């Protein structure tokens, strides 16, 4: 779809001519670029505070340099290791329990013949994606919490109570089911798109050759999904250290920090809330670097499987 007057002209225009021609286009990008420079790029330079003993009163220019001291302290901090372990554990649980669900649901929805039913189900299951975490957790609280519907029922039948919302031992399952409830429906969308792109002639040909529905799924549907599944897996692995921030922020007081501290919340509780900015920045930088390595590694893995992953080789 490349055309328009810009591609029809002479092979090479001088920079000045192009600048004059494109000045209004460039002007249009200015507001967004300025906002990104201020609120996304400037903080990158703010990362130098991780190598300082930052004091907000004298500012980043005058604070003393301490080299890698913050990182050394971080590695000796049991709370930091607890957050790291929690993050990895939660990430693993989500990968195993969450990841396959949207794929299965997309296959199921795709097999529903009635278009109206499919559209109805989709619009309902997309809805929780648009809820805030405060709202989602409030809803869980009202259903499964100590005063919620579940315990109302259990008490009413003298079975005792079972408060999942404050139990640190089952917290990983709780937050995973919350994530599934809120986001699994929305995640279907990508897989549905991939399913719709599979050529239906293939199914017909396979059926003519005597392949049953399970064989067709195995030999046509799943290979058709392979690319997008690998892509999603790469994204998931690349984000293995991001298990959610607000979700844990809201529930931390209920289950205690032993279970609910993750790397995303570490910077907040042990950096901003205590005024120990450099320490929190160091933790953030640590996480960013590992995350970049993870994205890179996951992408290598995708290439090894012969898929594009996030970017091509």
């Amino acid at each position, binding site marked *: 779809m490349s055309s*328009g*007057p810009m591609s029809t002209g002479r092979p090479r225009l001088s920079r000045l001519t192009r600048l004059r021609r*494109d000045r209004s286009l460039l002007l249009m990008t200015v507001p967004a670029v300025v906002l990104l420079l*201020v609120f996304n790029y400037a903080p990158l330079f703010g990362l130098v505070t991780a190598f300082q003993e930052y004091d907000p009163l004298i500012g980043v220019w005058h604070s003393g340099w301490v080299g890698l001291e913050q990182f050394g302290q971080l590695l000796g901090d049991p709370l930091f290791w607890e957050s790291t372990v929690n993050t990895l554990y939660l990430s693993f649980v989500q990968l195993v329990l969450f990841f396959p669900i949207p794929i299965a*649901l997309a296959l199921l929805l795709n097999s529903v013949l009635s278009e109206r039913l499919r559209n109805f189900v989709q619009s309902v*299951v997309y809805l929780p994606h648009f809820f*805030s975490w405060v709202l989602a957790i409030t809803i869980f609280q009202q259903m499964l919490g100590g005063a*919620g519907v579940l315990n109302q029922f259990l008490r009413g039948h003298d079975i005792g109570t079972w408060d999942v919302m404050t139990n640190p031992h089952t917290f990983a399952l709780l937050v995973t089911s919350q994530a599934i409830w809120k986001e699994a429906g929305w995640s279907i*969308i990508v897989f549905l798109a991939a399913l719709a792109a599979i050529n239906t002639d293939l199914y017909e040909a396979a059926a003519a050759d005597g392949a049953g529905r399970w064989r067709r799924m195995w030999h046509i549907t799943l290979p058709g999904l392979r690319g997008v599944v690998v892509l999603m897996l790469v994204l998931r692995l690349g984000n293995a250290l991001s298990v959610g921030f607000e979700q844990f922020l809201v529930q931390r007081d*209920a289950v205690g920090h032993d279970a609910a501290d993750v790397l995303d919340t570490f910077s907040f509780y042990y950096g901003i809330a205590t005024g120990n900015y450099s320490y929190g920045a160091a933790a953030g930088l640590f996480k960013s670097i590992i995350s970049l390595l993870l994205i890179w590694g996951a992408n290598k893995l995708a290439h090894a499987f012969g898929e594009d992953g996030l970017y091509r080789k």
Partner: protein
Amino acid sequence: MTMTIERGPTTSAAPRAVARRGNRAPWEEPPTTVGQAAKGLTLGTMLAVVVVPLWIIVVTSLSTPGAVNRAGGLVIWPDGLTLEPYREMLGDPTVRTSLLVSLGITLVGTLVSMAVSVLCAYGLSRPRSLGHRFLLFLLIVTMFVSGGLIPSFLVVTGLGGYDQWWALILPSAVSVFNILVLRSFYSSTSADLVDAARMDGAGEWRILWSVVLPTSRAVTAVIALFYAVGYWNSFFNVMLYMPTDSAKWPLQYVLLTFVNRGNGLPGSVNSGFGSTHAQTAPLSLQMAVVVLTLVPLLIVYPFVQKHFRAGVLTGAIKG
């Protein structure tokens, strides 16, 4: 001038897919009873886990104190309905203020975000324009590399953002993901239309306003919804930048402190809410606040939801 608005990778396959729907293709096996039952059960569960909690919350929010007492808490079947909790909620100054704050932030924020994003997306969507590759790179880098929480906090407070409205809007006003989605649609706007407009002497601003925007209403609506939901749902930036002044709290933050109060979680902030209301069962009142945070979404959702064709998202994921 009508055009197909839903574009994206699925377009080519769509007609075939539609042709298959509605009645079973002749080569497909008839469904098995067990298969149909399992399918129905799964679909039913998917619907129920979303609908049932919302139903219970709405019914409870409309229940009389007597109904709440009889149920021993949340009300599943309507048993004495009243609008009193809503009257009481809207009479509460904290809730009223926070509702206005939330609506204001959402409205202003969405306008700012949309203006900035639409302009930037169009500015980068013309093939071979000067510097668009470099600018795209500049944008995409921010999706993978970020300074993190503390450096961002220091930048915003360093610019004097503490306790300022703009601190709740500007730092998150640009979503590169949304710009990429818009851009991928603008890039595929019919070149003939754009050329025709250019022949007529229209400049880039004119083309954006009279050709590109009118032909991409669906994606504009979807992206506006994404932004609006983001502003409506945000509460953490309030915690960071204006934690003390309860007159500036949005609804989500009131819900948060209110959830804390209602469920005995520690760390609640005294917002003056809920303490003097002995008339209505507090639970109904709480659920009324929950419903209030849902209402704007439920009003807008049906209009925008039909445009969530899969292409909207996949276009961006592939960059």
